[in-house]
């Protein structure tokens, strides 16, 4: 081991710049992976935390059937007495609107005429938050981080989380009469957040009207601010508001979850007019009692309207999601490092070609094949190890900086998981070792006599043809994988383990024949353009097709990613998202009532019609991959008549005239077109829907484009989205949902609002919001279809920009590979350049020759990247179609492609520039003397 190690060290240290460039490639990949792993690990922990807070840390929980329904409080007492139960903890969660008279003393608008430099401003702020009623024993099932004060222990007390405090103390940007929230909620990650703070009018001012100094103004702002000891109020129509004393401030839910407030259970029941009602009961079992057996035994004795589930079952969906995410991360890591290992392979192979004589001498002196191979492997391990050493801490530091910058939005600590960092570091070393495999083989194969010979081995066309054939075979394998399987399971697994790697390896190796082709096509024109002697550039590139080809292969990966993202993203936005129909306006909440609907209908200057919608996730087994996820579908339930009077859906199969009577009659549903695409389910087929223990075979009477209601509810995190991951919708009557699946009344979490022709949607939303706020509870969000479409598009575009940045980073990483090649190529040909200069060639000729080679590499990379990106996008299109039923057409985004080509050419020339500049500085004598030794 020692000799091989010493040889590797000596080689690495003798070519410091090139070693450093390879280390930089691995370090950048490792830092990217470490950052992503650290960030997702932290977000996952936060999601788990949120889920545990939502589901509770008990062994089982009792819930009513149907989102938003409630249980009778007597059930908690009964459950506490069941055999095997240690404690049953009652809980009520419901949205609540609270108000606060926000006082600030801030600089006067017009100091010249003001009585004092600082003036009092007062605004009555209101916001909706999820209120939690705390019953004795709540600490055993929920974890709340208290930042100040204490939790409520009796009537008239409230604790607010930091997010609620922030919403109620946003300084109005506009005048108090505008009623426009100055801080809009923005979609970030998991949840778009609920309703932001809203100005609701003027409040009775407190404290002095002015302050003389900044210190005094700040002291007054603090004294009358929202802190422990302050008062907030719960507003009621036609009745005096109820004052609540703030006794504690808690940490906000992580990742921008809904703001939370905490009250004594009876207080909340009274405020929400849910006396004697609970939203769930957490059950803690005695030591040794098996939760599954307990649930099985107890379930039979419970009425249909009550669900009893083990906590493990509820959280298993998320656990599976997190496991899937880990698998996804592992795969992404593999691909990132595979790209790095290709660059290392090219670097080390170039070094082997350059050191043939040196290696032959070593063989003559008694070095075994194994020692030379081993020295290459050590070389790879050194590059990988140093890359990990630099890259992993860099990535973690980057993630820490991002978490610090977005600490308020994320509200989650950075969690460094050992498995993740081991994956990043181990992957980097493995990338080095994989990259060294071919060079090790080449070194071991070298015969001492052949190595000592000064004759260069001619490049055989047969070799290039064979590499090309292998590449085309791999590319064809990818196409076979995406177009042959019909089953989503087969397609997914084949794609992950065969299709995607084949695509990657195929296009990487296609670099060799592609460079030969591009060279043939472009070199004559480039020679003329650059003023080079005829055939000079073409011959130079032809002499080392593998080296140039592999570098082009490494360079194309970033562009391919960019092309695939934009091609696929454009298709999804245009053909799938573009065809979704969103309601003109909507009201979201838990516990909306016919009164709410009636109040909206009264706004007849804006509103033309309304329709109450129930949403329930149900199992269909129509989408997803069996071992990974079987997402549920959303049953969108409505009164068919009113719904179709205000909603125009595009009918893919069937028609309204025949479907409407069947829906009203019962036992029939409409399905979104994704069911037809993914599973071929159409009119006349039966689809089994299951909720808990109830199933029913519904007849499909129409296939329609989705009205986007399920997306609205998901976007605003309505319902138990963490545990019930649902995609695509089926549409049926509320009666069918209640009778055939729930066995209980279906609550109304969403009211769809139709606006009059020409009505201003912003003004309408404001009017609805103001009216519903005055009514008090139950409202989480009022919004317009246009607004949600705009927000989703903004979110989507931001995501595209962020992922494109990753693609540009991948190109940057590949630049180090290009720089490495150019340096090696220049070093290997110094004598040749020296002779050229000695024979009268100018510096310019030499420089243009090397730059011409870089242009050929860039052009080949651009063609390869575009082809691979388009084929990758086609793979994504097929996966979306078969697994998710999302269908869209692919059309090439020429703008981003052209930009990508420009970036590739510029980066390649940029990577070549330092080496070229150094070459230009050398005299012919120095260049010729390079042969010495």
């Amino acid at each position: 081991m020692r000799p091989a190690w010493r040889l590797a060290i000596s080689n690495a240290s003798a070519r410091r710049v090139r070693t450093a460039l390879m280390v930089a490639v691995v370090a950048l990949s490792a830092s990217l992976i470490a950052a992503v792993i650290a960030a997702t690990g932290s977000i996952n922990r936060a999601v788990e935390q949120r889920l545990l807070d939502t589901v509770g840390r008990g062994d089982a929980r009792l819930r009513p059937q149907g989102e938003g329904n409630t249980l009778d409080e007597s059930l908690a007492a009964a459950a506490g007495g069941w055999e095997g139960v240690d404690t049953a903890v009652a809980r009520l969660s419901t949205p609540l609107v609270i108000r606060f008279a926000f006082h600030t003393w801030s600089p006067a608008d017009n100091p010249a005429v003001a009585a004092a430099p600082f003036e009092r401003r007062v605004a009555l702020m209101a916001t909706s938050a999820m209120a939690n009623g705390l019953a004795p024993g709540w600490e055993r099932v929920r974890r709340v981080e208290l930042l100040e004060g204490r939790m409520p222990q009796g009537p008239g007390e409230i604790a607010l989380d930091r997010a609620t405090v922030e919403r109620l103390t946003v300084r109005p940007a506009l005048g108090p009469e505008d009623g426009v929230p100055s801080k809009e909620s923005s979609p970030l990650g998991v949840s778009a957040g609920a309703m932001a703070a809203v100005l609701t009018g003027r409040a009775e001012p407190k404290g002095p009207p002015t302050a003389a100094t900044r210190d005094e103004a700040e002291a007054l702002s603090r004294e009358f601010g929202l802190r422990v000891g302050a008062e907030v109020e719960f507003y009621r129509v036609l009745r005096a508001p109820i004052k609540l004393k703030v006794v504690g401030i808690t940490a906000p839910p992580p990742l921008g979850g809904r703001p939370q407030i905490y009250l004594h259970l009876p207080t909340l029941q009274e405020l929400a007019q849910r006396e004697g009602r609970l939203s769930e009961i957490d059950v803690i079992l005695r030591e040794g009692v098996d939760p599954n057996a307990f649930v099985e035994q107890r379930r039979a004795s419970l009425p249909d309207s009550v669900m009893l589930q083990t906590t493990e079952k509820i959280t298993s969906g998320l656990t599976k999601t997190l496991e899937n995410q880990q698998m996804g991360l592992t795969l992404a890591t593999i691909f990132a490092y595979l790209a790095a290992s290709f660059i290392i392979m090219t670097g080390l192979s170039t070094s082997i070609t350059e050191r043939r004589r040196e290696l032959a001498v070593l063989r003559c002196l008694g070095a075994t094949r194994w020692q030379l191979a081993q020295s290459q492997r050590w070389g790879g391990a050194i590059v990988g190890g140093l890359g990990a050493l630099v890259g992993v801490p860099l990535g973690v530091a980057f993630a820490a900086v991002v978490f610090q910058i977005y600490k308020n939005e994320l509200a989650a600590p950075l969690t460094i998981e050992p498995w993740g960092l081991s994956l990043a570091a181990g992957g980097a070393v493995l990338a080095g070792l994989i990259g060294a495999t071919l060079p090790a083989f080449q070194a071991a194969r070298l015969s001492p006599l052949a190595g000592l010979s000064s004759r260069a081995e001619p490049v055989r066309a047969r070799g290039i043809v064979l590499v090309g054939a292998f590449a085309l075979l791999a590319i064809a394998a990818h196409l076979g994988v995406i177009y042959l399987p019909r089953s989503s399971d087969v397609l997914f697994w084949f794609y992950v383990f065969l299709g995607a790697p084949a695509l990657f390896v195929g296009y990487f190796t296609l670099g060799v024949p592609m460079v030969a082709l591009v060279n043939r096509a472009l070199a004559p024109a480039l020679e003329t353009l650059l003023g080079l002697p005829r055939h000079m550039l073409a011959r130079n590139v032809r002499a080392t097709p593998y080296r140039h080809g592999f570098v082009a292969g490494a360079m194309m990966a970033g562009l391919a990613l960019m092309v695939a993202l934009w091609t696929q993203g454009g298709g999804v936005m245009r053909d799938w998202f573009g065809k979704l129909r969103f309601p003109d306006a909507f009201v979201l909440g838990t516990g909306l009532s016919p009164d709410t609907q009636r109040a909206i209908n009264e706004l007849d200057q804006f509103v033309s019609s309304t329709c109450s919608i129930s949403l329930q996730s149900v199992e269909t087994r129509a989408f997803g991959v069996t071992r990974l996820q079987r997402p549920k579908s959303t049953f969108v339930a409505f009164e068919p008549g009113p719904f179709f009077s205000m909603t125009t859906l595009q009918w893919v199969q069937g028609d309204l005239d025949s479907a409407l009577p069947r829906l009203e009659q019962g036992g029939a549903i409409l399905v979104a077109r994704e069911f037809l695409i993914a599973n071929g389910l159409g009119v006349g087929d039966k689809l089994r829907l299951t909720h808990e223990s109830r199933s029913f075979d519904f007849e499909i009477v129409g296939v329609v484009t989705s009205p986007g209601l399920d997306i609205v509810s998901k976007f605003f995190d309505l319902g138990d989205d963490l545990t019930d991951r649902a995609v695509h919708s089926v549409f049926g009557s509320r009666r069918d949902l209640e009778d055939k699946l729930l066995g209980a009344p279906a609550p109304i979490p969403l009211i769809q609002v139709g606006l009059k022709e020409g009505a201003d949607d912003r003004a309408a939303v404001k009017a609805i919001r103001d009216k519903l706020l005055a009514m008090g509870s139950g409202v989480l969000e009022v919004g317009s279809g246009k607004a949600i479409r705009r927000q989703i598009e903004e979110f989507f575009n931001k995501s595209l920009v962020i992922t494109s940045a990753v693609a540009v980073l991948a190109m940057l990483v590949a630049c180090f590979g290009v720089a490495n090649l150019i340096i090696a190529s220049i070093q290997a040909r110094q004598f040749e350049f020296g002779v050229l200069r000695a024979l009268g060639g100018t510096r310019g000729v030499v420089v243009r020759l090397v730059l011409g080679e870089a242009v050929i590499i860039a052009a080949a990379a651009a063609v390869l990247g575009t082809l691979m990106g388009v084929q990758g996008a086609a793979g994504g299109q097929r996966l979306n179609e078969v697994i998710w039923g999302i269908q869209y057409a692919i059309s090439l985004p020429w703008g981003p492609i052209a930009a990508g080509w420009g970036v590739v050419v510029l980066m390649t020339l940029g990577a070549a520039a330092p080496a070229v500049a150094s070459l230009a500085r050398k005299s012919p004598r120095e260049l010729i003397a390079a042969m010495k030794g």
Partner: protein
Amino acid sequence: MTIRCAGVEKSYRMGDREVQALRGVDLEIAEPGFYAIMGRSGSGKTTLLHLLAALDRPDKGEIFIAGRPIHAMGEREATLFRREGIGIVFQSFNLIPTLTARENVELPGLLAGRSATDLSKRSAELLDRLGLGSRMEHRPDALSGGEQQRVAIARALMFSAPVILADEPTGNLDSASSAKLWALLRDVAQEHEVTVAMVTHEPAAAVYCRRIYVLQDGAMRATIDTEGLDAAGVASRYQQCVG
């Protein structure tokens, strides 16, 4: 017997042509000393040296170096033999450009896994003896041609191998440096009691050698004992042999 070849034949392909490089060469060197293998370009002398160095295998015949049958050695055995059984000095020095003079000398020992202390001591001793004590930490590009070749000789002496093979060692040196190097190789052969077999086409070298083996068209044409001959006499005998 330090070197013995019997009926050695070797042919190889050059493009479409088959070249018979050696045609039944017999050679015997019984005692340590400085010997030359001479011949015109294309006579087969380098091919013979490659076979003696176990870099290649004969098509026919036997080769023994210090009693070891290298014609029958497998790949690995030949590699290990090259490491410790012989020393090689190349025409173009073939020092590793990224290593210092001392590290180049230590290279065979490093490959054999010898301890760093022993190697350091031995390399210093050899370089000192060859007049390179002050140049040990210099890389090849900072040494003159003669100095580089002395480093290569020190490297060949690392394991005190009984046979040193030199392939045109003065091919890249001027005449004064060449004369110094031949004298050095002769002294090395005497001092270390080793057999130094040098391939050369320069008659001027012959005067330093104990015997000259003359190859012509792949066959051993003659042997010339140089004892009692001056440079002109050796040159005249050699010219007679090669026509």
